[in-house]
């Protein structure tokens, strides 16, 4: 591994917003009070979508995200729910449908992670993570899909997977299994929903700098101080931005991707293209 690797400016992932790619669509994004979820909501809203924000609590971050979205002159709704809980999940959809009248896009993004070495795996952790990030995603998707079939105008299910679905890092057993399961879920949904116009795909992010940063530090996002050890392994030579993932989510949510189905797309700056360090 070379130590003189130069980090590229993270602004490389930005593009002109406001393409109007999602005009008239209603999108629910789980786990979107901050980070990648909030950025997806912002990019969707900038493209004309009405958005539903979900998370487990209406905290300062959630309020900030909602306030910023409301400035974009699209309909914005808030849905407090733990997607790992069946009743809360169904209530979230009931609320969203009441507010928006329909659902065109579901982004499964909420996640809770705990890193544990294999010998110490705990059954409660297993049940919690699988119940939340795998079972929760499956049953959120099921509900959304049933609504979309009723509406009869197709739809988009986008789930946030991970590079951990393809390779193993230390202590990531449960997380990796969850994410690999999501890739497989997308394939099955594509087959079972054949002919409905609904597509189901995953995005597999690599290192994405979704830290909460003060505004003055925003320009350093994805740059020095974030995952410095990994930059030499990433051909893009920068950490990913939530925007990089939101851009892919926008593509997958839009009509541009109508023939992309059952697929998992890496957005990792080339991390997995490479092997192990020199």
């Amino acid at each position, binding site marked *: 591994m070379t130590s003189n690797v130069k980090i590229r400016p993270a602004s490389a992932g930005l593009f002109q917003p406001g393409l109007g790619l999602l005009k008239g669509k209603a999108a629910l994004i789980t786990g979107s009070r901050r980070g990648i979820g909030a950025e997806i909501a912002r990019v969707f809203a900038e493209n004309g979508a009405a958005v539903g924000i979900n998370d487990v609590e209406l905290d300062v971050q959630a309020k900030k995200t909602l306030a910023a979205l409301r400035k974009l002159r699209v309909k914005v709704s808030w849905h407090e729910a733990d997607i790992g809980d069946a009743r809360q999940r169904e209530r979230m959809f009931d609320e969203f449908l009441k507010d928006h009248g329909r659902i065109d896009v579901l982004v499964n993004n909420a996640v809770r992670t705990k890193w544990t070495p294999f010998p110490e795996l705990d059954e409660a952790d297993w049940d919690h993570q699988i119940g939340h990030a795998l079972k929760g995603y499956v049953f959120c998707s099921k509900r959304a899909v049933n609504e979309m079939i009723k509406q009869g105008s197709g739809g988009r299910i986008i789930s946030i997977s991970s590079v951990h679905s393809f390779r193993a890092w230390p202590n990531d057993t449960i997380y990796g299994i969850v994410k690999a399961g999501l890739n497989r879920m997308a394939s099955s949904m594509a087959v079972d929903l054949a002919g409905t116009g609904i597509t189901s795909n995953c995005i597999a992010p690599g290192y994405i700098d979704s830290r909460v940063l003060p505004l003055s530090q925003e320009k350093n996002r994805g740059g020095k101080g974030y995952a410095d050890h990994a930059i030499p392994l990433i051909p893009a030579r920068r950490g990913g931005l939530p925007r990089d993932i939101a851009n892919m989510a926008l593509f997958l949510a839009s009509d541009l991707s109508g023939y992309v189905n059952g697929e998992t797309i890496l957005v990792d700056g*080339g991390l997995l293209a490479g092997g192990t360090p020199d």
Partner: protein
Amino acid sequence: MLLEGKKALVTGARKGIGRGIAATLAGEGADVGVNDIVDDRETRRTAEMVQKAGRKGTVHVGDVSKLGDINRVIDEFVRAHGGIDILINNAIFPDQSRPLFETDEAYWDRMMNLSLKGYFFAAQRAAKEMTKQGRGGRIVSLASVHAYRAWKDWTAYGIAKAGLKRMAMGMAVDLAGTGITVNCIAPGAIRNELTQGEIDPKPYDIEQHPGLKSRVPAQRGGLPSDIANAMVFLCSRMGDYVNGETILVDGGMIASGGEMR
């Protein structure tokens, strides 16, 4: 527009998917060089479609399975446009399927010289120019569902296409830090016969193609515009963090086990 002022060279752009890509990139603001081995009305027509979008459209005839032609075509393009930001490796000859025992050395060489060697050296040459320019770039090669699975009589083609997936990975790593990304798009069953100058012909009628009906969740054939739209995403700044990756645009064909009810 997502590709304002970008300079894109598309190989094999006389018709079909290549034409769709050329016209669509132009629609997003790119100047486009149209390469093909054949120089005829259709080749010119693709360039005219670029011009109609208000962009510079040039024709660069050459056999991109030959190193000399590759270098000349890229030189010509760079001279005409003042640089290169995007290379789309798309050229392919018509008889892509060949039974195993009829695959002689001449056919093998023809396949590999175009689809693997030609794509490799075009990408290498374009990357060299892009590195010199110092403003990054995009290299996208057309792979195929044949890179993922075997269909009868498609072995040579499949090997070449699988090689392109690995090429994107290797070049992404080798070009680290340059701002150049290298990716593939893997199309499924795309109808790309020549039509009256439009991007999209009528797609395959799924009812007439039981194989597609049982294999493709989208329940329709793909169109050049499906590929071209994914290409716009990858070539724009939106695709900046997608690197060394191959994206299937196959309506779910590879997700499926091929026995849908």
